[in-house]
């Protein structure tokens, strides 16, 4: 409270105690309001940060949740023998035939089904509920997802007895019908800017009102892989399996190596320059941008070692290198939390250092190591950039069956769908995929928090 204009009689520039008290009292109001202001700013910052979390989740949920439901036809499809003609019955598996040979015979037999006009089936079943639709068959076909034909064919291959019967089927409507019904496109746009013809729009509305088109839960989102020709039935299965494979690689590689490194650094490493160097390295690696690991993967795994591009095993390797520092740092923290008395007790009873660690320290650190694993896996699960550089952004329509098959990953699928030209439809699909990813991530993270809380030992 120094004030130069006052006579310098006291040590702090005040003539007497009264004057000092008076001065303090006179500034109190200002200081208190300043205090309130500062506190308010703190609350504001927290509210803003949490508000932003809310807005982020709110906007994604608002866009994504409707996309879990999708316009779907519920129609009686008549597999009439006149349309679906079979020249020979489906081959029967002979007792001593190998599965591969049998499959070959079935495929040969199924070839004849390719020449059947499946569209005719769809047209006839729509005509039953909407007689005037026969005037414009093109508009009717526009309303169905293009994979519907293959679905019908596969049903016959699966079970030829269906021929001659009428089945009530759920058939996914095309993406444009879905967009139209949900109102995700401006309905007042002129004809030439609409994505489907006027008839198709009119009938879609009519069928929706009649309940022939329903907004049904979109199972294709979970049972199909990405698809270019039939956007309405594009799903996440392939990306999910790809991500799963990479997570397995991360758990098999990053976790054992990371835990071993952490044990060495925490329990064995002598205090010297080299240990310091390793530590600086690890801390720096934890802060290296993820895309740099992608470059490392591209140059070492793809160019030098000639590993296949887009393969989950390469993605897993890159992600393992990336998550390794995270696992090491988190494991070290959990090892540090175990009091030295545990080690000393074991050593005093004649255990060697290795025994003290394997028999006493590691079992006690298990929850911490588990948490470290989950944090590492969650980090790897959400990472996109390095995967783009090793070719995982290529379009893959199949579910990968081995870790060397081309594949994509959940976050990369989000990136790809976000870039799709069919924006009206894919904005919702992307949000739905994000919700799936976030649910997975939040489950993992809350599992980590729950484990930490449940097994936390206060020494």
């Amino acid at each position, binding site marked *: 409270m120094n004030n130069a204009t006052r006579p310098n009689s006291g040590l702090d520039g005040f003539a007497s105690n009264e004057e000092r008290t008076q001065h303090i009292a006179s500034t109190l109001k200002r200081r208190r309001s300043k205090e309130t202001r500062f506190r308010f700013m703190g609350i504001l910052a927290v509210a803003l940060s949490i508000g932003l979390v809310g807005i982020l989740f709110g906007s994604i949920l608002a866009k994504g949740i409707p996309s879990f439901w999708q316009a779907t036809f519920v129609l009686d499809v008549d597999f009439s023998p006149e349309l679906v003609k079979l020249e020979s019955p489906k081959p029967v598996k002979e007792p001593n035939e190998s599965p591969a040979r049998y499959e070959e015979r079935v495929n040969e037999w199924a070839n004849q089904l390719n020449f059947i006009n499946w569209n005719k089936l769809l047209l006839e079943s729509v005509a039953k509920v909407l007689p005037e639709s026969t005037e414009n068959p093109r508009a009717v076909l526009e309303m169905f997802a293009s994979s519907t034909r293959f679905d019908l064919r596969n049903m016959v291959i699966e079970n030829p007895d269906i021929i001659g019967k009428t089945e009530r089927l759920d058939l996914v409507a095309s993406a444009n019908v879905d967009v139209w019904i949900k109102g995700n496109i401006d309905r007042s746009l002129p004809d030439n800017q609409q994505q489907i013809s006027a008839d198709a729009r009119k009938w879609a509305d009519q069928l929706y009102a009649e309940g022939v088109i329903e907004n049904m839960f979109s199972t294709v989102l979970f049972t199909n892989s990405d698809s270019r020709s039939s956007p309405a039935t594009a799903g996440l299965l392939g990306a999910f399996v790809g991500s799963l494979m990479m997570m397995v690689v991360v758990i098999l590689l990053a976790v054992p190596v990371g835990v071993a*490194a952490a044990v060495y650094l925490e329990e064995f490493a002598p205090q010297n320059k080299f240990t310091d160097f390793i530590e600086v390295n690890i801390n720096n690696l934890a802060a290296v941008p993820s895309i740099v690991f992608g470059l490392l993967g591209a140059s070492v795994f793809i160019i030098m070692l000639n590993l296949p591009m887009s393969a989950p095993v390469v993605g897993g390797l890159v992600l393992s290198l990336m998550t390794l520092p995270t696992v090491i740092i988190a494991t070290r923290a959990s090892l540090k939390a175990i009091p030295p008395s545990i080690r000393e007790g074991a050593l005093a009873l004649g255990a060697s250092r290795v025994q003290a660690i394997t028999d006493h320290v590691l079992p006690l650190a298990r929850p911490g190591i588990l948490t470290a694993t989950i944090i590492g896996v969650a980090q790897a699960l959400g990472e996109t*950039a390095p995967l783009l550089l090793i070719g995982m952004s290529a379009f893959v329509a199949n579910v990968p069956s081995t870790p060397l098959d081309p594949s994509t990953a959940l976050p990369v699928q989000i990136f790809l769908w976000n870039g799709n030209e069919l924006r009206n439809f894919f904005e919702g699909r992307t949000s739905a995929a994000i919700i799936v990813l976030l649910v997975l991530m939040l489950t993992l993270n809350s599992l980590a928090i729950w484990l930490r809380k449940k097994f936390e030992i206060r020494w």
Partner: protein
Amino acid sequence: MNSLIIPVILLILAGFAYQVGLRSSLKAASKAPDVYMHSRPSYHGWLAMLRAALPALVVYLLWHFFGSSIINPMVIETLPAAQVPEGSLERDALMQRLLNLATGFGVADEAPDWQVAGSAYMAQLYSYGRTITFALMATVAAIGLFTSWRNTTPQTRARNKVERFITIALFACSGVAVLTTLGIVLSMLGEAINFFSYIKPADFFFGTTWNPRFATTDTESQSGFGLLPLLSGTLLIALIAMLVATPLGLMTAVFTSEYASDRVRSIVKPLVEVLAGIPTIVYGFFALVTIGPFLNALGAMVGLEIRATSALTAGVVMGIMIIPFVSSLSDDIITQVPRAMRDGSLALGGTKSETILKIILPAALPGIVGALLLGVSRAIGETMIVVLAAGNRPVLTANPFEAVSTVTVSIVNQLTGDQDFASPQSLVAFALGLTLFVMTLVLNVIALVVVRRYREQYE
């Protein structure tokens, strides 16, 4: 040959060796009943396993990785000299072709006689090599088993040997981090040097136009490899991000560490940390779909032209992403300021905000600066947000309302899609990556040193 056979053989060998070691120690113990065994039987088992299976594994790995580099020159010697290409790339391709012939995998076209002869010789060499490898593996494994069987006495220090091996293995695991850093530096340096053989370093570092056209090798297009537009975009976005993240993150940290009650703290902290667990692709989508249009509309309201994808959009969202990073690091640092300093200020009559602003924050300043530097390094290396929301327009500008491009975006652009890894258009990604790595490395090291100094100061 099935690649699973070797691991299975090795596993069986390991199990067998373990039993041999275990039995031999029991035998040794029964022979000398009044002598204490130095190690427990299981350690003898482990030792025998290491002695037998480890050398066999090493022999196999040597053959696996270096077999071809021994055989290829021998094959080349027998080929007609005129047919052996000069370049190493072409030579590798030829060897791959011969290998495909040798393994019966086949090649697309008809192979000339000299290639067939070469591949036959190659196949012969490979079969010799395999036989020798198997013989060697069997020999070293037998030697190991025999040593264990004969030399197991009560005095054998099996435990110490096994533990030494474990320690070395742990050390090797912690060396992976160093190897990763080395891999990053060497691989990027190698490719970047390759790039600089096409483009002068000065043109790259001081060039002001970024326009790497594909599929042209004329000299005019090479002037388009200037780093500066990308660097300016990167720094502009990082600056905006820090302008958002610093006040919000710091105030959140101050509030949670100084004002909030334990209950509020236990709710607020995890909520803010949820932001840290969200994948960056989700932030990118959020920026593109929600924040961008919002800023655009906001700009239109006040008469500014803000593009939906601009430096501002990307920067703001990146700032949101960095908030939890800054706040949790600062929180740790603020709580480390000794209690006595706080109490001293409060005892002298300072209000809480005065204590924070005049005592705690100055004391914590080095640590906070470190945290902010780590935040900057994050912002510089962030990829997905800028890929989606920065607009991808590499121009030299300081206007935050315009679209820009960044170093990371250009890395992704240059390395995705199908192109030749040897062209300067692809190689430039590694030069960019190296620049990025060096920038973040410097920031990280400074930040880590500052934070570490700070911690030591109050320990």
